[in-house]
Protein backbone atom coordinates (compact mmCIF):
# COMPACT_ATOMS: atom_id res chain seq x y z
CA UNK A 1 0.00 0.00 0.00
CA UNK A 2 1.17 3.47 -0.84
CA UNK A 3 2.41 5.19 2.32
CA UNK A 4 0.63 8.52 1.83
CA UNK A 5 -2.68 6.65 1.47
CA UNK A 6 -1.84 4.76 4.65
CA UNK A 7 -1.12 8.01 6.51
CA UNK A 8 -4.39 9.62 5.43
CA UNK A 9 -6.44 6.49 6.15
CA UNK A 10 -4.65 6.18 9.50
CA UNK A 11 -5.64 9.74 10.40
CA UNK A 12 -9.26 9.00 9.46
CA UNK A 13 -9.19 5.78 11.52
CA UNK A 14 -7.82 7.73 14.50
CA UNK A 15 -10.65 10.26 14.13
CA UNK A 16 -13.11 7.37 13.87
CA UNK A 17 -11.83 5.95 17.17
CA UNK A 18 -11.57 9.27 19.03
CA UNK A 19 -14.92 10.72 17.87
CA UNK A 20 -17.16 8.27 19.74
CA UNK A 21 -15.10 8.89 22.90
CA UNK A 22 -15.89 12.61 22.62
CA UNK A 23 -19.60 11.94 22.02
CA UNK A 24 -19.84 9.56 25.00
CA UNK A 25 -18.18 12.14 27.28
CA UNK A 26 -20.56 14.80 25.93
CA UNK A 27 -23.50 12.43 26.52
CA UNK A 28 -22.47 11.74 30.11
CA UNK A 29 -21.88 15.43 30.82
CA UNK A 30 -25.11 16.82 29.34
CA UNK A 31 -27.65 13.97 29.11
CA UNK A 32 -26.66 11.06 31.34
CA UNK A 33 -29.70 8.83 30.84
CA UNK A 34 -33.14 8.75 32.54
CA UNK A 35 -33.14 9.55 36.28
CA UNK A 36 -34.54 6.11 37.07
CA UNK A 37 -36.18 3.03 35.61
CA UNK A 38 -39.84 4.00 36.07
CA UNK A 39 -42.05 4.66 33.07
CA UNK A 40 -42.46 8.32 34.07
CA UNK A 41 -38.72 8.88 34.18
CA UNK A 42 -38.03 6.96 30.97
CA UNK A 43 -40.78 8.61 28.94
CA UNK A 44 -39.95 12.10 30.22
CA UNK A 45 -36.29 11.66 29.30
CA UNK A 46 -36.97 10.38 25.80
CA UNK A 47 -39.62 13.05 25.15
CA UNK A 48 -37.83 16.13 26.49
CA UNK A 49 -34.26 15.32 25.50
CA UNK A 50 -34.96 13.55 22.21
CA UNK A 51 -33.49 16.10 19.74
CA UNK A 52 -30.23 16.23 21.71
CA UNK A 53 -30.09 12.43 22.00
CA UNK A 54 -30.54 11.95 18.27
CA UNK A 55 -27.90 14.60 17.54
CA UNK A 56 -25.34 12.86 19.76
CA UNK A 57 -26.04 9.39 18.37
CA UNK A 58 -26.03 10.58 14.77
CA UNK A 59 -22.75 12.42 15.26
CA UNK A 60 -21.35 9.23 16.72
CA UNK A 61 -22.57 7.24 13.73
CA UNK A 62 -20.77 9.61 11.36
CA UNK A 63 -17.49 9.07 13.25
CA UNK A 64 -18.10 5.31 13.29
CA UNK A 65 -18.67 5.24 9.53
CA UNK A 66 -15.46 7.19 8.93
CA UNK A 67 -13.60 4.77 11.20
CA UNK A 68 -15.11 1.64 9.62
CA UNK A 69 -14.39 2.79 6.06
CA UNK A 70 -10.81 3.79 6.89
CA UNK A 71 -10.18 0.57 8.84
CA UNK A 72 -11.43 -1.57 5.96
CA UNK A 73 -9.12 0.30 3.59
CA UNK A 74 -6.18 -0.23 5.93
CA UNK A 75 -7.08 -3.91 6.31
CA UNK A 76 -6.46 -4.30 2.57
CA UNK A 77 -2.82 -3.32 3.08
CA UNK A 78 -0.12 -5.89 3.55
CA UNK A 79 1.40 -6.97 6.80
CA UNK A 80 0.45 -8.08 10.26
CA UNK A 81 -2.17 -5.43 11.04
CA UNK A 82 -4.93 -6.75 8.81
CA UNK A 83 -6.88 -8.65 11.48
CA UNK A 84 -6.64 -5.71 13.90
CA UNK A 85 -8.11 -3.26 11.36
CA UNK A 86 -10.86 -5.72 10.48
CA UNK A 87 -11.75 -6.10 14.16
CA UNK A 88 -12.01 -2.30 14.48
CA UNK A 89 -14.19 -2.16 11.35
CA UNK A 90 -16.45 -4.92 12.70
CA UNK A 91 -16.74 -3.16 16.06
CA UNK A 92 -17.63 0.12 14.39
CA UNK A 93 -20.42 -1.52 12.37
CA UNK A 94 -21.81 -3.07 15.57
CA UNK A 95 -21.82 0.35 17.27
CA UNK A 96 -23.71 1.84 14.32
CA UNK A 97 -26.31 -0.91 14.80
CA UNK A 98 -26.47 -0.18 18.53
CA UNK A 99 -27.07 3.53 17.90
CA UNK A 100 -29.54 2.75 15.15
CA UNK A 101 -31.65 0.68 17.55
CA UNK A 102 -31.51 3.64 19.95
CA UNK A 103 -32.53 6.23 17.38
CA UNK A 104 -35.15 4.01 15.77
CA UNK A 105 -36.73 2.33 18.78
CA UNK A 106 -36.00 3.91 22.20
CA UNK A 107 -38.57 6.71 21.96
CA UNK A 108 -41.02 4.57 20.00
CA UNK A 109 -41.08 1.88 22.72
CA UNK A 110 -40.30 4.01 25.79
CA UNK A 111 -43.05 6.64 25.54
CA UNK A 112 -46.15 4.71 24.43
CA UNK A 113 -47.44 3.60 27.82
CA UNK A 114 -46.37 1.86 30.98
CA UNK A 115 -47.48 -1.54 29.68
CA UNK A 116 -44.77 -1.35 27.02
CA UNK A 117 -41.96 -0.83 29.52
CA UNK A 118 -40.78 -4.50 29.24
CA UNK A 119 -40.53 -4.03 25.48
CA UNK A 120 -38.49 -0.85 25.94
CA UNK A 121 -36.18 -2.69 28.35
CA UNK A 122 -35.71 -5.53 25.86
CA UNK A 123 -34.78 -3.07 23.10
CA UNK A 124 -32.41 -1.27 25.49
CA UNK A 125 -30.86 -4.63 26.31
CA UNK A 126 -30.32 -5.51 22.65
CA UNK A 127 -28.81 -2.10 21.95
CA UNK A 128 -26.34 -2.51 24.81
CA UNK A 129 -25.46 -6.04 23.72
CA UNK A 130 -24.31 -4.56 20.41
CA UNK A 131 -22.61 -1.72 22.30
CA UNK A 132 -20.57 -4.23 24.34
CA UNK A 133 -19.81 -6.27 21.22
CA UNK A 134 -18.53 -3.07 19.57
CA UNK A 135 -16.32 -2.23 22.52
CA UNK A 136 -14.94 -5.80 22.71
CA UNK A 137 -14.15 -5.95 18.98
CA UNK A 138 -12.63 -2.46 18.88
CA UNK A 139 -10.60 -3.20 22.03
CA UNK A 140 -9.12 -6.42 20.66
CA UNK A 141 -8.34 -4.58 17.41
CA UNK A 142 -6.64 -1.80 19.39
CA UNK A 143 -4.64 -4.46 21.27
CA UNK A 144 -3.51 -5.92 17.93
CA UNK A 145 -2.48 -2.53 16.54
CA UNK A 146 -0.60 -1.79 19.77
CA UNK A 147 1.29 -5.03 19.41
CA UNK A 148 2.28 -3.89 15.93
CA UNK A 149 3.60 -0.66 17.47
CA UNK A 150 5.55 -2.67 20.07
CA UNK A 151 7.19 -4.58 17.21
CA UNK A 152 7.92 -1.67 14.89
CA UNK A 153 8.14 1.43 17.12
CA UNK A 154 11.08 3.16 18.78
CA UNK A 155 11.56 3.09 22.58
CA UNK A 156 8.67 5.49 23.26
CA UNK A 157 6.47 3.72 20.69
CA UNK A 158 7.18 0.37 22.35
CA UNK A 159 6.17 1.69 25.79
CA UNK A 160 2.97 3.30 24.48
CA UNK A 161 2.23 0.15 22.50
CA UNK A 162 2.65 -2.11 25.52
CA UNK A 163 0.44 0.03 27.77
CA UNK A 164 -2.33 0.29 25.18
CA UNK A 165 -2.03 -3.42 24.44
CA UNK A 166 -2.81 -4.19 28.09
CA UNK A 167 -5.64 -1.63 28.22
CA UNK A 168 -7.12 -3.15 25.05
CA UNK A 169 -7.03 -6.65 26.51
CA UNK A 170 -8.67 -5.44 29.74
CA UNK A 171 -11.46 -3.64 27.84
CA UNK A 172 -11.97 -6.73 25.68
CA UNK A 173 -12.36 -8.96 28.75
CA UNK A 174 -14.73 -6.60 30.60
CA UNK A 175 -16.98 -6.16 27.57
CA UNK A 176 -17.03 -9.87 26.85
CA UNK A 177 -18.39 -10.47 30.37
CA UNK A 178 -20.80 -7.54 29.90
CA UNK A 179 -22.26 -9.24 26.81
CA UNK A 180 -23.27 -12.15 29.04
CA UNK A 181 -24.32 -10.14 32.11
CA UNK A 182 -26.13 -7.26 30.46
CA UNK A 183 -26.94 -3.80 31.77
CA UNK A 184 -25.32 -4.12 35.20
CA UNK A 185 -21.89 -3.75 33.56
CA UNK A 186 -22.67 -0.66 31.46
CA UNK A 187 -20.34 1.63 33.40
CA UNK A 188 -17.22 -0.60 33.53
CA UNK A 189 -17.81 -1.74 29.93
CA UNK A 190 -18.22 1.78 28.58
CA UNK A 191 -15.37 3.17 30.69
CA UNK A 192 -12.74 0.56 29.75
CA UNK A 193 -13.95 0.53 26.14
CA UNK A 194 -13.69 4.31 25.85
CA UNK A 195 -10.22 4.43 27.40
CA UNK A 196 -9.09 1.71 24.98
CA UNK A 197 -10.60 3.61 22.02
CA UNK A 198 -9.03 6.94 23.06
CA UNK A 199 -5.58 5.37 23.44
CA UNK A 200 -6.27 3.31 20.32
CA UNK A 201 -6.77 6.53 18.34
CA UNK A 202 -3.26 7.59 19.36
CA UNK A 203 -1.83 4.20 18.41
CA UNK A 204 -3.73 4.14 15.08
CA UNK A 205 -2.19 7.52 14.26
CA UNK A 206 1.35 6.53 15.31
CA UNK A 207 1.38 3.13 13.67
CA UNK A 208 0.26 4.49 10.29
CA UNK A 209 3.15 6.99 10.12
CA UNK A 210 5.34 4.16 8.78
CA UNK A 211 4.85 1.03 6.66
CA UNK A 212 3.22 -1.95 8.45
CA UNK A 213 5.33 -4.53 10.22
CA UNK A 214 5.69 -7.69 8.17
CA UNK A 215 5.27 -5.90 4.82
CA UNK A 216 7.79 -5.61 2.00
CA UNK A 217 7.95 -1.83 2.40
CA UNK A 218 9.22 -2.14 5.97
CA UNK A 219 11.66 -4.94 5.19
Amino acid at each position, binding site marked *: MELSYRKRAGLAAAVGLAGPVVTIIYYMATLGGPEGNSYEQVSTYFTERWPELVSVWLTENVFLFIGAVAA*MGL*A*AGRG*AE*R*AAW*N*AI*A*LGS*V*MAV*LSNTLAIGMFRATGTIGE*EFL*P*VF*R*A*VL*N*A*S*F*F*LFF*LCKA*AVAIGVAGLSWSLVRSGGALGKIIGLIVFLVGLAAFAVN*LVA*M*ARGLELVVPGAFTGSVAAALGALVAFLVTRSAPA*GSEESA
Partner: protein
Amino acid sequence: MDIGYRQRAGLVASLGLAIPVATTLTYVAALSEVSTEAYYGARWSDVVSVWLTEVIGFSIGIIAALGLASQNGAEKASWNALALGGLFGILSTAIGIGLFKGFGTAGEEFEALANAIVNISFFFYFLSKMLIGAGIAGIGLELLRRGGLLGKALGLIASLAGVAAAVVNIAAMATGMDLVMPGGVTGTVAGLMGAIAVFVVTRSTTADES
Protein backbone atom coordinates in the same frame (compact mmCIF):
# COMPACT_ATOMS: atom_id res chain seq x y z
CA MET B 1 0.05 -13.23 0.26
CA ASP B 2 2.50 -14.63 2.71
CA ILE B 3 1.71 -18.36 3.05
CA GLY B 4 2.31 -18.32 6.82
CA TYR B 5 -0.32 -15.61 7.21
CA ARG B 6 -2.71 -17.47 4.91
CA GLN B 7 -2.33 -20.69 6.89
CA ARG B 8 -2.97 -18.97 10.21
CA ALA B 9 -5.93 -16.94 8.90
CA GLY B 10 -7.25 -20.12 7.29
CA LEU B 11 -7.13 -21.96 10.61
CA VAL B 12 -9.03 -19.12 12.31
CA ALA B 13 -11.62 -19.00 9.47
CA SER B 14 -12.03 -22.75 9.84
CA LEU B 15 -12.66 -22.32 13.58
CA GLY B 16 -15.08 -19.51 12.75
CA LEU B 17 -17.15 -22.04 10.79
CA ALA B 18 -16.72 -24.94 13.23
CA ILE B 19 -17.65 -23.06 16.43
CA PRO B 20 -21.22 -22.21 15.27
CA VAL B 21 -21.62 -25.87 14.25
CA ALA B 22 -20.58 -26.97 17.74
CA THR B 23 -22.85 -24.42 19.44
CA THR B 24 -25.82 -25.41 17.25
CA LEU B 25 -25.34 -29.09 18.17
CA THR B 26 -24.97 -28.16 21.86
CA TYR B 27 -28.13 -26.07 21.69
CA VAL B 28 -30.16 -28.81 20.02
CA ALA B 29 -28.89 -31.48 22.44
CA ALA B 30 -29.20 -29.49 25.66
CA LEU B 31 -31.79 -26.74 25.20
CA SER B 32 -34.28 -27.51 22.45
CA GLU B 33 -36.60 -29.59 24.66
CA VAL B 34 -36.65 -27.20 27.62
CA SER B 35 -40.00 -25.73 28.71
CA THR B 36 -40.58 -22.03 28.02
CA GLU B 37 -40.59 -21.31 31.75
CA ALA B 38 -37.23 -22.97 32.34
CA TYR B 39 -35.84 -21.54 29.10
CA TYR B 40 -36.27 -17.95 30.26
CA GLY B 41 -35.64 -18.89 33.90
CA ALA B 42 -33.12 -21.40 35.22
CA ARG B 43 -31.62 -22.25 31.83
CA TRP B 44 -31.38 -18.72 30.41
CA SER B 45 -27.74 -18.33 31.39
CA ASP B 46 -26.98 -21.56 29.49
CA VAL B 47 -28.78 -20.20 26.43
CA VAL B 48 -26.79 -16.95 26.61
CA SER B 49 -23.51 -18.86 27.05
CA VAL B 50 -24.15 -20.94 23.93
CA TRP B 51 -25.11 -17.91 21.83
CA LEU B 52 -22.27 -15.78 23.11
CA THR B 53 -19.81 -18.52 22.17
CA GLU B 54 -21.43 -18.49 18.74
CA VAL B 55 -21.00 -14.69 18.48
CA ILE B 56 -17.30 -15.09 19.26
CA GLY B 57 -17.06 -17.82 16.62
CA PHE B 58 -18.73 -15.60 14.02
CA SER B 59 -16.54 -12.63 15.00
CA ILE B 60 -13.21 -14.39 14.58
CA GLY B 61 -14.53 -15.97 11.37
CA ILE B 62 -15.44 -12.54 9.96
CA ILE B 63 -12.07 -11.02 10.84
CA ALA B 64 -10.16 -13.94 9.29
CA ALA B 65 -12.36 -14.11 6.18
CA LEU B 66 -11.99 -10.37 5.54
CA GLY B 67 -8.23 -10.79 5.75
CA LEU B 68 -8.29 -13.73 3.35
CA ALA B 69 -10.55 -11.77 0.96
CA SER B 70 -7.84 -9.15 0.51
CA GLN B 71 -5.44 -11.61 -1.13
CA ASN B 72 -5.13 -12.22 -4.85
CA GLY B 73 -6.87 -15.05 -6.64
CA ALA B 74 -10.24 -16.57 -7.27
CA GLU B 75 -11.36 -17.02 -3.65
CA LYS B 76 -12.09 -13.36 -2.90
CA ALA B 77 -15.86 -13.50 -3.42
CA SER B 78 -16.15 -16.67 -1.33
CA TRP B 79 -14.34 -15.13 1.65
CA ASN B 80 -16.45 -12.00 1.42
CA ALA B 81 -19.61 -14.13 1.38
CA LEU B 82 -18.39 -15.96 4.49
CA ALA B 83 -17.61 -12.64 6.23
CA LEU B 84 -21.00 -11.17 5.37
CA GLY B 85 -22.72 -14.40 6.46
CA GLY B 86 -20.92 -14.18 9.81
CA LEU B 87 -22.13 -10.61 10.25
CA PHE B 88 -25.77 -11.61 9.79
CA GLY B 89 -25.20 -14.58 12.09
CA ILE B 90 -24.13 -12.13 14.81
CA LEU B 91 -27.24 -10.03 14.20
CA SER B 92 -29.46 -13.07 14.52
CA THR B 93 -27.80 -14.14 17.76
CA ALA B 94 -27.69 -10.60 19.16
CA ILE B 95 -31.47 -10.34 18.72
CA GLY B 96 -31.74 -13.69 20.50
CA ILE B 97 -29.66 -12.61 23.49
CA GLY B 98 -30.94 -9.05 23.66
CA LEU B 99 -34.63 -9.35 22.85
CA PHE B 100 -36.03 -12.88 23.24
CA LYS B 101 -36.29 -12.91 27.02
CA GLY B 102 -37.63 -9.36 27.31
CA PHE B 103 -40.39 -9.95 24.79
CA GLY B 104 -41.00 -13.61 25.69
CA THR B 105 -41.63 -12.92 29.38
CA ALA B 106 -43.52 -9.62 29.07
CA GLY B 107 -46.96 -11.25 29.22
CA GLU B 108 -49.51 -12.93 27.02
CA GLU B 109 -50.57 -9.69 25.33
CA PHE B 110 -47.03 -9.39 23.89
CA GLU B 111 -46.99 -12.86 22.38
CA ALA B 112 -47.53 -11.57 18.83
CA LEU B 113 -44.63 -9.13 19.26
CA ALA B 114 -42.43 -11.88 20.72
CA ASN B 115 -43.19 -14.00 17.66
CA ALA B 116 -42.30 -11.10 15.38
CA ILE B 117 -38.94 -10.79 17.14
CA VAL B 118 -38.26 -14.53 16.74
CA ASN B 119 -39.22 -14.19 13.08
CA ILE B 120 -36.77 -11.38 12.32
CA SER B 121 -34.00 -13.17 14.20
CA PHE B 122 -34.56 -16.24 12.05
CA PHE B 123 -34.66 -14.18 8.88
CA PHE B 124 -31.10 -13.06 9.68
CA TYR B 125 -30.29 -16.67 10.64
CA PHE B 126 -31.41 -17.95 7.20
CA LEU B 127 -29.65 -15.07 5.44
CA SER B 128 -26.48 -15.96 7.32
CA LYS B 129 -26.74 -19.65 6.42
CA MET B 130 -27.44 -18.79 2.79
CA LEU B 131 -24.38 -16.56 2.46
CA ILE B 132 -22.14 -18.99 4.34
CA GLY B 133 -23.47 -21.82 2.15
CA ALA B 134 -22.64 -19.80 -0.98
CA GLY B 135 -19.16 -19.00 0.35
CA ILE B 136 -18.51 -22.66 1.16
CA ALA B 137 -19.70 -23.67 -2.32
CA GLY B 138 -17.08 -21.30 -3.76
CA ILE B 139 -14.29 -22.56 -1.50
CA GLY B 140 -15.33 -26.16 -2.28
CA LEU B 141 -15.06 -25.45 -6.03
CA GLU B 142 -11.55 -24.05 -5.54
CA LEU B 143 -10.56 -27.25 -3.75
CA LEU B 144 -12.14 -29.29 -6.56
CA ARG B 145 -10.04 -27.37 -9.10
CA ARG B 146 -6.75 -27.55 -7.31
CA GLY B 147 -6.76 -30.41 -4.81
CA GLY B 148 -5.39 -33.93 -5.08
CA LEU B 149 -7.80 -36.85 -5.32
CA LEU B 150 -8.90 -36.63 -1.68
CA GLY B 151 -9.04 -32.82 -1.92
CA LYS B 152 -11.22 -33.03 -5.04
CA ALA B 153 -13.64 -35.40 -3.29
CA LEU B 154 -13.81 -33.14 -0.24
CA GLY B 155 -14.25 -30.07 -2.46
CA LEU B 156 -17.11 -31.71 -4.33
CA ILE B 157 -18.92 -32.70 -1.12
CA ALA B 158 -18.39 -29.24 0.43
CA SER B 159 -19.63 -27.40 -2.68
CA LEU B 160 -22.74 -29.62 -2.92
CA ALA B 161 -23.44 -29.09 0.79
CA GLY B 162 -22.93 -25.34 0.33
CA VAL B 163 -25.29 -25.13 -2.64
CA ALA B 164 -27.93 -27.17 -0.77
CA ALA B 165 -27.68 -24.86 2.25
CA ALA B 166 -27.93 -21.75 0.07
CA VAL B 167 -31.00 -23.00 -1.82
CA VAL B 168 -32.89 -24.26 1.25
CA ASN B 169 -32.17 -21.09 3.21
CA ILE B 170 -33.35 -18.83 0.37
CA ALA B 171 -36.66 -20.71 0.53
CA ALA B 172 -36.62 -20.41 4.34
CA MET B 173 -36.31 -16.61 4.13
CA ALA B 174 -39.55 -16.58 2.14
CA THR B 175 -41.55 -19.12 4.16
CA GLY B 176 -40.24 -18.35 7.64
CA MET B 177 -40.31 -20.58 10.67
CA ASP B 178 -41.68 -23.64 8.82
CA LEU B 179 -38.23 -24.31 7.40
CA VAL B 180 -36.15 -23.87 10.56
CA MET B 181 -35.17 -27.55 10.66
CA PRO B 182 -34.14 -28.03 6.99
CA GLY B 183 -32.47 -24.59 6.96
CA GLY B 184 -30.59 -25.34 10.15
CA VAL B 185 -29.58 -28.90 9.17
CA THR B 186 -28.32 -28.01 5.67
CA GLY B 187 -26.57 -24.92 7.03
CA THR B 188 -24.89 -26.89 9.80
CA VAL B 189 -23.75 -29.71 7.49
CA ALA B 190 -22.36 -27.08 5.09
CA GLY B 191 -20.64 -25.33 8.02
CA LEU B 192 -18.95 -28.56 9.09
CA MET B 193 -17.82 -29.52 5.56
CA GLY B 194 -16.81 -25.89 5.00
CA ALA B 195 -14.65 -25.82 8.13
CA ILE B 196 -12.68 -28.80 6.78
CA ALA B 197 -12.51 -27.43 3.22
CA VAL B 198 -11.36 -24.00 4.43
CA PHE B 199 -8.62 -25.58 6.49
CA VAL B 200 -7.42 -27.72 3.58
CA VAL B 201 -7.60 -25.00 0.91
CA THR B 202 -5.55 -22.54 3.00
CA ARG B 203 -2.66 -25.03 3.39
CA SER B 204 -1.46 -23.96 -0.09
CA THR B 205 -1.28 -20.62 -1.94
CA THR B 206 -4.16 -19.18 -3.96
CA ALA B 207 -4.67 -20.34 -7.55
CA ASP B 208 -3.14 -17.20 -9.08
CA GLU B 209 0.00 -17.37 -7.01
CA SER B 210 0.73 -21.08 -7.20
